[in-house]
């Protein structure tokens, strides 16, 4: 590889070091970095104190099923990628390297080496996390690095083959392959359905992975898991890592042998991916989708003192990025909500209400970052918002309503599903549904007030950025403190109102005990609702103030 490219990698590393230590120049930055570093060290220490193999997957299970998951992961990367498969280079790399005096092979070597170096720290963290499934940390780390390299080389091979056979043929072949995989999967599922163990995925996977064909095909992949589970340096680790390395070397050989003219596809595809990354940096995952041709639009909303047009714009942005968001909702529904509810049914739990409350809270916390269709997603449009002929508080209402509506919708859908599964919890679910809108308004109000006061991009964290970790932690604590304060106040208000109502109705002597209890609950609930809603509304002047104080030149984050 060219010495200039080695120098470039060294300069990248130096630049990263500079970037990560930039925060230490200010007292605030140093303190948040210190806090982030402290919590990170605590977390790692806790993980390291967990004994190896204590709660892990059985080695045989890992050896048997691991290769299938690794292959599935690599295939998923191929299927989920854009139709014009290409190796990603940043725009700066396209600018400086593609027209520079470097051969295509040198650029590939640079890309592989850079990715491997970048994966060194991230693999270390993953190794700490997954070490409970193995016996020797060193083996885990080396095997993970081998796995990362395999995944990258596999992707590169597919990209270069795609470039060699042409984009159209590649898309056609990929579609045929995808249909083949779906057909095989469907046949296997139908066979499994006919077996005594039925649809249970564990048995299905076992029956597939125990076939002799799979055993032979998956042998090279199994070497990675053998390396992962190695207990000694010799012969276990050396032999298994050697075998895994040989797989990677074969792939590397294919990559270099193909030497396809990938630059054009890479330049085009990289520009598109970079645009997606930029959109992601501006507004998070929900806004990162393709900026394709808009297929539909929302009808105009009434003016509502200026709130309508603002809400319409945010909802339009949200709806256009909804595909990705719906995929996330679907995944949550399939992998989180359904199993949890099913488990609560199986166990005949006495307190499913608690489970549902927990689920809704978790969903809310998760979705808060997923739907930044407010000031957070408008980080590069604050200047335009400031020029609008609207009072700041109305602008704030318009900005907050879109995420509030979206999250409330998702929560109500979850609660409705829970209602169908557990009709006996209707009252709890109804109460949760009633509290959702004011709570969401309060939550997004807090998020936006904090954002405008301490602006940071939704998705701008770099691995190892302790300042970002510390800042997120402080924000989380601040939000939690405010929510607890509001929650406590609402609870006290609800209790007091409930007691007073009960007392008054008892004194009147005109109601049955059951009616009095119902009225007391309703009055208490309403008082609590008013407190939460009032606190949310009280944030509006603060948000308006923070918006007015936002200096576009100074406060717009990099």
């Amino acid at each position, binding site marked *: 590889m060219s010495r200039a490219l080695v120098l470039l990698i060294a300069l990248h590393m130096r630049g990263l070091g500079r970037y990560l230590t930039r925060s230490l120049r200010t007292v605030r930055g140093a303190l948040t970095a210190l806090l982030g570093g402290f919590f990170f060290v605590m977390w790692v220490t806790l993980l390291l104190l967990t004994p190896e193999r204590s709660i892990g997957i059985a080695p045989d299970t890992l050896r048997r099923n691991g290769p299938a998951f690794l292959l599935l992961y690599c295939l998923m990367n191929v299927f989920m990628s854009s139709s014009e498969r290409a190796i990603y280079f940043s725009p700066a790399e396209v600018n400086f390297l*593609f027209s520079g005096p470097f051969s295509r092979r040198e650029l590939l070597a640079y890309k592989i080496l850079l990715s491997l170096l970048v994966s060194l720290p991230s693999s270390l963290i993953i190794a700490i996390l997954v070490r409970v499934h193995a016996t020797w940390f060193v083996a885990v780390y080396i095997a993970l690095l081998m796995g990362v390299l395999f995944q990258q080389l596999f992707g590169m091979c597919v990209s270069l083959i795609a470039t060699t056979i042409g984009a159209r043929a590649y898309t056609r072949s990929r579609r045929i392959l995808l249909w083949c995989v779906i057909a095989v999967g469907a046949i296997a599922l139908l066979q499994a359905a006919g077996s005594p163990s039925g649809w249970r995925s564990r048995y299905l996977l076992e029956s597939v992975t125990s076939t002799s064909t799979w055993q032979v095909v998956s042998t090279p992949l199994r070497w990675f898991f053998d390396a992962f589970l190695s207990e000694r340096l010799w012969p276990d680790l050396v032999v298994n890592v050697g075998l895994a390395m040989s797989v990677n070397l074969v792939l590397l050989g294919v990559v270099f042998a193909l030497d396809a003219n990938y*630059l054009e596809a890479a330049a085009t595809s990289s520009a598109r991916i970079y645009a997606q990354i930029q959109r992601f940096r501006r507004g998070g995952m929900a806004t990162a989708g393709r900026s394709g041709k808009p297929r539909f639009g929302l009808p105009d909303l009434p003016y509502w003192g200026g709130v309508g047009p603002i809400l319409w714009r945010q909802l339009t942005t949200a709806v256009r990025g909804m595909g990705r968001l719906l995929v996330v909702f679907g995944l949550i529904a399939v992998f989180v909500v359904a199993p949890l509810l099913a488990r609560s049914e199986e166990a005949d739990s006495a307190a499913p209400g608690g489970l549902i409350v927990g689920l809704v809270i978790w969903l809310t916390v998760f979705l808060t970052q997923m739907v930044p269709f407010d000031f957070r997603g408008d980080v590069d449009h604050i200047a335009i918002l400031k020029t609008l002929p609207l009072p700041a508080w109305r602008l704030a209402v318009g900005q907050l309503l879109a995420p509030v509506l979206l999250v409330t919708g998702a929560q109500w859908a979850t609660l409705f599903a829970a209602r169908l599964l557990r009709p006996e919890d209707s009252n709890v679910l109804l109460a949760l549904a009633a509290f959702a809108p004011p709570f969401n308004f309060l939550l997004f109000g807090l998020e936006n007030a904090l954002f405008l006061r301490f602006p940071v991009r939704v998705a701008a964290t770099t691995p190892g950025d302790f300042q970002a970790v510390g800042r997120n932690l402080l924000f989380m604590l601040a939000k939690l403190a405010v929510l607890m304060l509001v929650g406590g106040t609402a609870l006290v208000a609800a209790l007091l109102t409930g007691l007073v109502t009960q007392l008054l109705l008892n004194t009147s002597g005109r109601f049955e005990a059951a009616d009095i209890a119902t009225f007391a609950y309703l009055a208490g609930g309403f008082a609590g609702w008013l407190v939460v809603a009032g606190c949310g509304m009280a944030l509006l002047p603060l948000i308006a103030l923070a918006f007015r104080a936002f200096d576009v030149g100074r406060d717009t984050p990099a």
Partner: protein
Amino acid sequence: MSIVVEDYHKIYGETVAVAGISFSVAPGEILGFVGPNGAGKTTTLRALAGIIAPTFGRLFIAGHDVVHEPVAAKAQLAYVPDEPVPFERLTVWEHFRFTAAAYHLREWRARGEALLDRLELTEKRDAPGSELSRGMKQKLAIGCALLHHPKALLLDEPLTGLDPFGSRSMKELIRDFAAGGAAVIVSSHQLSEFQSLFTTLLMLHRGRIIRFGKLEELRNELSAEGRSETLEELFLRVMKQPERATELQP
């Protein structure tokens, strides 16, 4: 000739981006590459820079075929795209350092300092790429391009984002560089800005050349017709009826 393009075609599926153009640029010449959006200017420059491959035709930089001898050709050229993006975390000086290493330059520091000074980047020497303004990024890209004395310089909209001082010094830099023996292609829409700089003009429309000739010859032709048009007026007139335009070979 430092830059030679022979029957260059670029076809995407059923779309013909460039339909067989041929031209050459001699050392010391500054070719104005003009045309409306989608005419094929950037596609041609990117093909000359070795970023995209031609569908047919051949492209040469300092005698080296861009497709068959890419490294040798690229060692003699510098390309500045319309929207240069520096490495976010590398400082201005580190960009120069990398460029010097890439083109095997030994004594480059004095020239680097001089370029920093001329491009008014001295104060930004240790600033990372992510902290540079649009104009500064443009200047940095030009600085890196000129550091290694390329024989062919390809500039796509080089004045975008520059203030009047920056524009003037950029034009002087391009003129000096061409005077030093390099062949320069400048693609731009700002014709009035470059009127005094171009030595040759090439007008593209929908992937075809509709005018190509020495600027002086073009002026003579216009005065013979009794016209006193600026470059911009000529461009607008020709683009209104591109099919009636005549092709002039220098």
